[in-house]
């Protein structure tokens, strides 16, 4: 029995008086692909934040068997500075994550997600879809073992959504992935297991 990469036992999280998650039990094996579904407000984003280590559980236990620098996290917000350019943002993250051959890797990702031509523009000039694509670059920059993607398709047009399909197809089986989506049909074909939140 391989040790699971993520294991939750009776996991719960409150925000003050509001209980968002309660009594969750699940495990994700290395190389697994977990799809988390649920309507808005069911706690999908909270669950990803917990797995990333940004939030601590207020009930139960959560074990995530990866180092901090091996997690790639895609949140609702792109987590980039609006006054800096795409290149400057990725360069900063590249340095903090000690990415080897930083420049090449950044260039490769920007090209892949169609942002190379816009690399010197500030994020405040980006469309929502471009910012989302940049956020994907940021999450993948350091080749993380564990990917936590919160609504990866949000704000993306058909072409860009195709890029995400290709990405998920590539990641499935190679890395451990947890994806939330309120349009689960698109992701189901990659997922090895599913978790539905009440």
């Amino acid at each position, binding site marked *: 029995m391989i040790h699971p990469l993520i294991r939750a036992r009776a996991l719960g999280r*409150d*925000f*003050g008086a509001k*209980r968002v998650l309660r009594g969750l039990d699940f495990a994700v094996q290395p190389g697994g692909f977990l799809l988390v579904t649920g309507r808005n407000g069911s706690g999908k984003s909270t669950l990803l934040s917990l797995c990333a280590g940004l*939030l*601590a559980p*207020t009930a139960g236990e959560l074990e995530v068997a990866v180092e901090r620098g091996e997690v790639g996290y895609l949140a609702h917000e792109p987590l980039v500075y609006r006054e800096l350019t795409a290149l400057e943002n990725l360069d900063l993250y590249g340095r903090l994550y000690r990415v080897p051959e930083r420049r090449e890797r950044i260039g490769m990702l920007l090209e892949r997600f169609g942002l190379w031509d816009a690399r010197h523009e500030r994020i405040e000039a980006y469309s929502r879809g471009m910012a989302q694509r940049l956020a994907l670059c940021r999450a993948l920059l350091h080749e993380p073992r564990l990917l936590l993607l919160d609504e990866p398709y949000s704000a993306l047009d058909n072409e860009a959504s195709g890029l995400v399909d290709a990405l998920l197809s590539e990641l499935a089986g190679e890395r451990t992935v947890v994806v939330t989506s309120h349009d689960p049909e698109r992701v189901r074909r990659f997922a090895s297991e599913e978790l539905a939140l009440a």
Partner: protein
Amino acid sequence: MSTSLRNNSAIFAVAAAVLLLGGTALAFYWVPNAPLEGFRQRIFYFHVPIALTSYACFGWAAWKGLRLLWTRERHYDLESYTAVHMGVIFGILTLLTGSIWARTSWGHWWVWGSRQLVLFLVLFLFYAAYFMLRFSVEPGPRRANMSAVYALFGVALIPVSFLAIRLAEDLVHPVVLTHDVGSKLSASQITTFLVCLAGMLALAATLYSNELAGKRLDGRLRELREALQ
């Protein structure tokens, strides 16, 4: 867990009652008048023990805060918070008794020349901001962490502020007002003082255990109510 706290609380309450009643009696009837100040000096037997108890509460809060950061066990947050609460209550009492003493000694309700008064004013502002911090952050692990860090800063602030106030005296040249408790305390004075100090500490311990037990009960009730939903 809650029963032991209740038992502790009862012991402290009895000790506090005995020591405080005894201490008050000693302070008013047994100890002779201080040579220069006379009868009104007796408030010293309350003011200084209250001040020392306040420091002890803040120190206890910082210790609990440190334990929280070290072990991440959430129960320390409530303990640290309650200790700060006690510290502030005794701090306010320090300011009140100090003010009364200042009024009877020098005719003013507030004197900048009194080091203890000024120090407690600064600390009061600091710990009042602690409550503002807690009110404006959502309850949870983050608030607990921040409160613990703030409590640690408080304990570092106490000696640093005291030094600053001493230095400030040289600067502003006020008349440095200290109460004349005599160059050497007699045995009876020391005894009375220690009894009152022990009494105040016991009182703080009583209030602390009581409030902690009450808050824990509230927490348990809330948990049970939610489990039933």
